[in-house]
C-alpha cells in the first residue's frame, strides 16, 4: 500500500488542521495583508508533513468550511507542491 492511500483523517484532525492554518494566518496577516497567503503557504510547506498538507488540500476540495480567506488562498497554492 502506498502512503498516498493513507488519507483517512478524522473530522477531529481536519478541524485541527483548519484551526492551525487559521492560527498561522492570523500571525502573517498581522505582518502584511498583501504577503500573508504566500507566507502562510511557506510556513505550511516548511513545517507540515506531506500527509497533513494532502489532508488540508483534500479538505479544501470538499468545501473547506471554516478556512479563513488568506489561509484558504494559501492552501489553494499548496496543490502544485504536494
Amino acid at each position, binding site marked *: 500500500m502506498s*502512503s498516498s492511500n493513507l488519507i483517512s*483523517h*478524522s473530522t477531529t484532525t481536519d478541524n485541527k488542521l483548519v484551526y*492551525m492554518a487559521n*492560527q498561522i494566518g492570523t*500571525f502573517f496577516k498581522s505582518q502584511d495583508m498583501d504577503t500573508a497567503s504566500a507566507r502562510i503557504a511557506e510556513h505550511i510547506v516548511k513545517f507540515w*508533513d506531506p500527509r497533513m498538507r494532502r489532508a488540508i488540500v483534500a479538505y479544501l476540495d470538499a468545501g473547506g468550511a471554516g478556512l479563513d480567506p488568506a489561509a484558504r488562498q494559501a492552501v489553494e497554492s499548496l496543490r502544485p507542491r504536494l
Partner: protein
Amino acid sequence: MSFVHEIDYGTPKSKSEKTVTLTVDGKQVTAPEGTSIMRAAMEAGIEIPKLCATDMLEAFGSCRLCLVEIEGRNGTPASCTTPVAPGIVVHTKTERIELIRKGVMELYASDYSLASLDRSTKESKYAALLDIAEAVGLKEVRYGFDGARHPNAGIDASNPYFVYDPAKCIVCSRCVRACEEVQGTFALTISGRGFDSIVSAGMNEPFLESECVSCGACVQACPTGSLIEKSVLAAQTTEKPADRSLVTTCAYCGVGCSFKAEMRGDEVVRMVPYKDGKANRGHSCVKGRFAWGYANHKERILKPMVRETISEPWREVSWEEAITRVASEFKRIQKTYGRESIGGITSSRCTDEETFLVQKLVRAGFGVNNVDTCARVCHSPTGYGLANTFGTSAGTQDFDSVEHADVVILIGANPTDAHPVFASRLKRRLRQGAKLIVIDPRAIDLVRTPHVEAAYHLPLLPGTNVAMLTALAHVIVTEGLVNEQFVRERCEWDAFKHWAEFAADRKNSPEAVAKITGVPAEHIRQAARLYATGGNGAIYYGLGVTEHSQGSTAVIAIANLAMATGNIGRPGVGVNPLRGQNNVQGSCDMGSFPHELSGYRHISTDSVRHMFEIDWGVELDKEPGLRIPNMLDAAVDGTFKGIYIQGEDILQSDPDTKHVAAGLAAMECVVVQDLFLNETANYAHVFLPGSTFLEKNGTFINAERRIQLVRKVMEPKNGYEDWQITCMISNAMGYPMHYSHPSEIMDEIARLTPTFAGVSFKLLEEVGSVQWPCNERAPLGTPVMHIGQFVRGKGRFLITEYVATDERTGPRFPLLLTTGRILSQYNVGAQTRRTQNTIWHEEDRLEIHPHDAEERGVRDGDWVKLASRSGETTLRARITERVAPGVVYTTFHHPNTQANVVTTDFSDWATNCPEYKVTAVQVSPSNGPSQWQEEYESLTRRSRRIVPAGAAE
C-alpha cells in the same frame, strides 16, 4: 585510581587588570590588585593554613590561623583580609607566626569533640580539623579535652542528605556565609554570643523545618566535618571513603552544573559541585547535589521486556530477542502501512551523541523524518522566535553575563525553583544593586525574598504576555527611549519603522492593555522606562512565555524589546531562555526536529541534505516529518503505527492525556527506552532498559549553548549505554552503525555541522567546555552572540499583534489554571520521586486564592475536583495569596495528579508547542479521585506486572 584535586585559594579571584608584585617567603609573586596575600601566596604555591577562609566566600578574618608578618608593618595581620601591595615583603612561616598558629589551633582542638590528637581512633580518623592541626604542627593540647565546650544541642539529622553535629563546629561562619553569599537563602545564622555562639538554622529550628533549601553549599564550606553528607558518613568505614573522582555534568535542569563524582567502586559516595564548572562556578542545588539515588532505585528496570498486547504482563527477554522484535515489528509495519507510518522521539535527557543517533536512525534507518523531541512541548517557540529575529535558535549570553546586568526582566520563569543555581547567581547580582522586573501571574519567590525585592511585579493574567510585552514596547517607542543608533546600525530599518508604528498604536498602550492583563498602566510604564534606561538590560524567560498559543509571538516580542533598546551583543544584556531539561538545547542542536538537520538547517535544503546523504550513504526524504502532536493525531487516524521513544514520558508530560493515550493505544508497536516503567510504558510493547548519566560517556549542552562532557563513572547496570542500544536497533533494521566510543559520534556531528566544526572530546578534555558556535572563526567557542552583527545579518523586527487564546473562562470554567515546578522535584518526577526529595513534596497541590476558595467552600488541605473541557482530576488545595483571584496553579511532578488530563490541545501557532500555561477550569470540593484517576491507576497496576525470564507462564 585518581582524584580530581581542586586548589582552595582561600579568597575569591580579584577582577582587577592591574597587577602588583610582592615578595612572599623570598619568592617574587605577581597578582591582580585587590588579591589577598593568602591567595597570592597560594597562586605561587605557598599554602597558608586557614579555617574560616575559602575561595568560594569573601574573606572574613575570624579564625586567626592565617596570620603573617609583613616587613615594616606592625603586628601579625590576617593574610585573608590583607590585600597585596607593591613591594611588600611577607613572611608566612616565622617562628612567631608558627607559635601563634599553634596556640590558636590548640584552643580550637580543645573545643572540638575529641579525646586526643591521636589519629588512629575511629572517631579521629576522619576528623578534618586534625588535618589542619597536623599542618600547623600541633602535637599536644595543654588544656586537655575535658574543659567546657560551646553548647551542643545534639546532632541534627533532620535533613535527608546531611547532618549537623555541633560538637565538631568551631563557629567559623563558613556555612552561614555560604548560605548568604553563594546560595542567597540566608537560612543560617550564628545565634548567641561569645562561648554560647552556635550555628542555627532558621529560628533555632531543625534544618528540615527552616528555610534551608538543601543546596549543600554549607556542607561544602564546612572545614571540620560538622556539616557532612550522610552518604560520606556511611562510607567512612574503610581507609578512604572514596577511591577516585571524576568531573561530570548534572543531568537535571538546563543550567548544566559541573560536579565531581566521588566514587568507591561502582558506588557514588557524593557529588561535589566543581569550581571550574563555568555554568555553576562551584555551586549546586538539592537535585544535582543529592538526588542521584534513583540510579539504584528498586524500581529501575535492568532487563529488556516484551509483550504482545498492552493488557498482558511484561516478559523479560534477552537483548537479542528484544532488539529483533523491535526491528521485525518496525519492518512489518512499514511494509503494511507505508514507510511514513513509523517514527521516533529523541531524549532531551540523553547525550548529544545519543540524540544525534536516534534522529539518524529515524532519517537514515527508517527513511522518514518523523522525529521530534520534548523541546516541542517547551522551547520550540524560542527556536522559531529567535531564528526569525536574530537568526539563531538559542540564548545569546553565558551565565557569567548576569554579573554585568543592571536591570533584569524575568518573565514566565521561576528560577529559584526550576533553575536554582542560576537563581543564586542572579540573586547575588541583585544584592549588589541590579534591579528586577518580574512579569508572572504568580508571586514567585524572587518577587520578595531575603535581601532581594523586585522593583516591579507585573502580575498579568495567564495568556496575556504578548499584550504586556507590546505595551512595554509602546512605552519605549512613544517616550523616545529607542536606541536609534543601535537600530540603524544593526537592524532592518524599514522593518523597524513598520514595527514602531504598530507598537505606537493606542491599542498597545499600557492604558489599553491594562484591561487585558489586569496590571495597572502606570506600573507597565515605569517598568518599561526602567528596562530602557537602567543600564545593561537582560531578559530571562522560561516556559511561561513559550507554552501558549502565542508562544512564538511572545519570544519575538522579547527579541524586539532587546533590539529596540540595544540590549544585545555584549555582556550583561541579551535574551536568555532558561531551558528545562539538561540537554534540551543539545537535542534541538542535534537535529531532533522533523524539519531540520543538526545546526538548524532545513531538510529541504539540497546542499545540506546532500552532505548528510554522502556521509550516511543513504538517500534522505526532503519533506518535513510529523511533530509529536501530529504523530498522535496520525496515530488516532490510523496512519502512524510504530514509535521508538528514547527517554521521554509523553503520556505524563504532554497535554491532553486522553488524546495521548488514544494515540499510543492505536499504535501497533510502541518501544520505550527508559530507566523506569514510566507512564508511556503503560502503552508499550517493548521496553528497553536505559542507562543513567553516571553510566555513559558523551556531552550535554546547557541553556548557555555550553557543551560539557558527561563522564562514565560506573558501568551501565542495564548492560549498555543508550547510544549502543540505538546502534543495535539500527543494525537489526539493516542500516549499519558502528561506533566504538561517543567521541566518534561527536566527530561526525562536527563534520556535518558548521557551528560544531571545532568541537571534539579532545578539545573538551583540554579546555573543560565550549559554547557553540565553535569553529575556525571561534576556536574556543562563543560566550556572547551577535557581537557586531546578528547571525542573520541585520536584526529583524516583527509585528506582535496580541490575539487572545481561544481557551477562555466562562460560567462553566471561570478560573484560569497555570502550571509550574517546585525546587525539590524535577519535571515528571521519574527521578526525584525515587529519591528522598519526596520529603519536601509528597504530592502536587492546587494553589488557590482565599477569595476563590471561600466562594467554593474549600479549606486548606481539602480534596478538590479540578475540571476543564478536556477532563478532570482531583488533588488537594493550598490556599495562598501567591496567586491572584481568578488564577489557580499546580505542579505536575506526580503521575497520580494527572494535571495534563485537564490541559487542552490548544498550541502555539508556529510550532504546536502546547498551551500548558492557560486552561479554563472550575474547582469544587471533592471526596476522592476522579473516575479517570481510578481507571488509570488500575491500568498502571496491570501494566507493571513482570514475568521474569525462565518463569513458568
